[in-house]
């Protein structure tokens, strides 16, 4: 199976994989070879990619995923490989976003939505990072 993860900035991931676990809005799903075509909405969280017995994780923000034939495509606003997560920078970003959100009444709906996306993405990265430490 071929997996690609695309964000507005770049193609973050592209490789042949044996399976993918992704967080959808209605729960986690595991996609293995031969899966029926599916289009689904995903939320911020962890994506686990299995590649010849090895598992690697990526943090992802909300987006969409589709699986057609043996090709899985994930569209997300942000995605990052676990090794690249910089905890202190993420915490910083989360704090900034939360502080900005505190002055909510001055902002437009779009800005609030964007900040909330940022926060949930930051949270997903932190949870993932802490999980691997244990």
């Amino acid at each position, binding site marked *: 199976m071929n997996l*690609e993860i*695309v*964000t*507005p*900035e*770049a*193609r973050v991931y592209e490789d042949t994989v044996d399976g993918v676990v992704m967080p*959808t*809005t*209605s729960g986690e*799903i595991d996609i293995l070879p031969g899966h*029926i*075509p*599916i*289009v*689904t*909405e995903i939320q911020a969280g962890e994506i686990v990619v299995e590649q010849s017995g090895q598992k690697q994780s990526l943090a992802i923000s909300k987006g*969409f995923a*589709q699986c*057609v*034939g043996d090709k899985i*495509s994930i*569209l997300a606003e942000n995605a990052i490989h676990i090794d690249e997560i910089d905890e202190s920078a993420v915490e910083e970003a989360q704090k900034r976003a939360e502080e900005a959100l505190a002055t909510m009444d001055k902002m*437009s709906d*779009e*800005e609030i939505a*964007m900040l909330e996306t940022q926060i949930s993405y930051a949270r997903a990265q932190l949870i993932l990072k802490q999980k691997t430490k244990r």
Partner: protein
Amino acid sequence: MPNLREIRRRIKSVKNTRQITKAMELVAASKMKKAQQSALSGQPYAALLAETLSHIATRIEEVEHPFFEEREVKTRGIIMVTTNRGLCGPLNSNLFREVMKSDDAMKFVSVGRKGKQFLSRSSRELLADFEIDDSVPYVKVKQVTEFMIEKYLSGEVDTVEIMYPRFVNVLTQAPTVAKLLPIRGLDEMITELRGKDAEPYESSADDRNFVFEPDPVSILNSLLPLFVDRQAYQAILSARASEHSARMVAMKTAKDNATKLLDSLTLQFNKARQAAITQEILEIAAATSQD
């Protein structure tokens, strides 16, 4: 024969101008690289988004969404993307010409100061003006499209189109009108976004049944606005890349012209100087021979 001081003054001023245009060319060149990069890097995302959307759109016949509904076009809604500053060649005026050519009833939203000036000068209906700076923040673009979608849904306009100078290459920018709403021709759009070497895309290639989670309608509801926003965003990025490359080319021409002018002025100056010296020698010779 103009006097020496006059010519020297002109040479100085032309030199200054050349210096400035040279600097502006360099600035535009570096900005262009950045803008081009960001316009290109967004393309796979936009293509995939269109692909996902076409999977849904072609498979659920019963979906009735106002975004797909084709209605009689009485008033076109146009988002006009222009530059904030001038000195970028015929980039903006090419767009304006497109507007002048058409007699349809149109309502406008302007992005960029030049467009706003043109629309108010030619007394066309300007619904709103949005300022988007060079970094093109996505949130700002979203405000523009959201505004237009609202007008579209309320029936004030029957289409939403975006008019912008499309970046073809550094030397060519094509004035383009792209339809955002109602959504049509997804297949061609995907083929174009994937680039020249990709095979033509066909959404009906895989005809197995699709599963949609949680359900098609709610996916469609969150996907459609994102799709429209992204398309507008992509168009504006392309317009920015066009702006900087047009400015770079315009400034390069200006610089070359200044250099040419400088050459001829220098020649003129030397001739005048030579003439003055010859004149002086003649006078001295005449004065000494008289004695």
